């Protein structure tokens, strides 16, 4: 197990280096000369060449990458192209708390609704409630954010007019409700489905029958014996659930006018602001890889039956 953890801990930074190099190389491939963007198009070619050499743009790509990444790990991602004179850092980190709060709210909705519904459906397997829950998960999982956003907006904003639809005021502002709801719905479906499946699995175990025959109350069995065990597979998907929020947040932040990372990414793509795109990709990937590492390493603590190891053999 220790060997497995060590191997993962060594492989993770290597993986991040490779991923960031690929991103860096791809962006070098993109059109748009940073020097010509700074000067005007008809600048003296010799001056342009001199600036290129001074900026290190004539060095081999590996050297440029090493320079970039050594700055990046110290938190310096360079300058934005679109917003002259602003660093990528200040642009991104102003927006991270916004998206983080929105994601947290969405995740709370997913977990807060998904686990109870899944548990409830499984405990009453075969009943009308179970059928309803299963149908809802099927619908919620396959309905894209593209549909849920306009429907929710149309209903709450245009027809009922009870909830605000635009802007941002932090975690404890009513303006977070609709975007978090929309962003959380697919997660509710996924978590309900997972919880239901794993609860059904747990319910049929011998130790549940033992607990019943001991005369424990259903309440204690449900919370202490069933829930604790059925929740494990759900926890492991939370890393992926976070990643799933990413592409949804582009759409939701755009629709609801939320100044988060998703909207910044979208603007950067529109403006071909590659330093920001690169920084966002590297940061997003790091977050994702580390989240999965944490989930994997946390797994044996949640479920002592699991022994890590066996390398990367999956399937």
């Amino acid at each position, binding site marked *: 197990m220790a060997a497995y953890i060590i191997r993962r801990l060594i492989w993770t930074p290597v*993986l*991040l280096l*490779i*991923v960031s190099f*690929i*991103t860096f190389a*791809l*962006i070098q*491939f*993109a*059109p*748009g000369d940073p020097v010509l963007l700074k000067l005007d198009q008809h600048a003296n070619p010799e001056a342009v060449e001199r600036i290129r050499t001074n900026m290190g743009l004539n060095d081999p790509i590996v050297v440029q990458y090493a320079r970039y990444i050594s700055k990046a790990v110290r938190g310096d991602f360079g300058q934005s192209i679109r917003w002259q004179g602003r660093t990528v850092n200040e642009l991104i980190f102003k927006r991270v708390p916004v998206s983080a709060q929105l994601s947290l709210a969405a995740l709370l909705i997913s977990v807060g609704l998904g686990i109870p519904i899944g548990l409830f459906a499984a405990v009453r397997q075969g009943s009308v409630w179970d059928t309803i829950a299963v149908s809802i998960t*099927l*619908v919620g*999982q*396959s*309905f*894209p954010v*593209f*549909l849920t956003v*306009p429907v929710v*907006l*149309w209903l709450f*904003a*245009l027809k009922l007019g009870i909830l605000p*639809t*635009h802007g941002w005021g932090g975690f404890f502002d009513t303006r977070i409700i609709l975007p978090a709801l929309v962003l959380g719905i697919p997660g509710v479906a996924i978590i309900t489905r997972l919880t239901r499946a794993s609860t059904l699995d747990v319910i049929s175990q011998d130790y549940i029958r033992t607990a019943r025959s001991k005369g424990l109350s259903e309440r204690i069995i449900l919370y202490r014996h069933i829930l604790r065990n059925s929740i494990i597979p759900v926890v492991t998907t939370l890393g992926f659930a*976070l*990643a*799933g929020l*990413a*592409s949804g947040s*582009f*759409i939701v932040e*755009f*629709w609801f006018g939320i100044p988060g990372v998703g909207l910044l990414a*979208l603007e950067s*793509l*529109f403006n*071909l602001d*590659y330093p920001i*795109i690169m920084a966002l*990709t590297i940061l*997003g*990937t790091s*977050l*994702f*890889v580390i989240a999965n590492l944490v989930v994997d390493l946390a797994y044996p603590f949640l479920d002592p039956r699991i022994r890590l190891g066996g390398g*990367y*053999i*999956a*399937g």
Partner: protein
Amino acid sequence: MRGEATEAPIFLETRKSRSYIGLSFKRLLRKKLAVISLAIVSTMYMAGVLAPLVTPYGYDDQDYSVANQGPSFSHPFGTDRLGRDMLTRIVFSLRTTVIITVTSLVAGSLFLGIVLGLISGYFGKLADTIIMRVGEVTSAFPDIFLVLIIVATVKPTVNGWVRTFEDATGIDWIIRLGIVDYTVIAFALTVFSWFGLARLVRGQVLQVRENEYSEAARAIGASTSRILWMHVLPNVISPVIISISAGLAAFAVAEVVLSWMGIGIQPPVPSLGIMIFEGSNLQVLRNDPHLTLFPVLTLTLLLFCFSLLGDGVNDAFNPRAR
């Protein structure tokens, strides 16, 4: 003599594998929801393929006298702000969906995924390590970030090359028909998607390789490619078929998201993503809801049917699901 000896087992084995797939397919046809979904998906795909034949207008025919109209007899889904027929544009958008999803599926999952999975599982060692590590790198990017970054960086450059080529040769339809967009997006989706199936196939190969019948085949002198083709492949067909529906849905969504962001398909080539983007504000939702409604409903119907179909296929083809 030799011909007879090798031909008999071929006959037996193909019959066996066909009958399993055939049985599964029969099971699938008994599921009403799955069959309805399959019919809807097929209709949408056929409409996309036959787009120029089944639509009453051209996708770029502008008619300002009927701009921004709601649904009517002559325009069942209404018209957009340029007076273009929404139904026509949606059907042509489905053509885009068909091209992207089918190309990515065939190239990405079916070809690369299966071949690399077979190689990785069967030969092991260095080939396995390389393929699996490369796959891990491609799956380290969260969600569709890899597709996004490839399309955002590679497409403008390739467009530049093609434009130079067009200027030099006088050809003018490569960019206009969206061929560059299609190619680059399908390429990016292929890079993004091959690993899932490759890993799955590899897992199956590892199981099958140790089985007695593979060993027996090896013992009577069957070649590696024959063992892979006759003994390993039939075992991976079911999981591959199960993965197709979800794969197509994922490709369709990815294309829509990219085009919605403005880096995927470029106008005037129609895409559901572009149409949904044009309907993505409260003003349109309030004044011309049909501009938002119909493209979004089309996408939803497609994804919903893929989801139901996927569940049905899984029940029918997955021996463990029953």
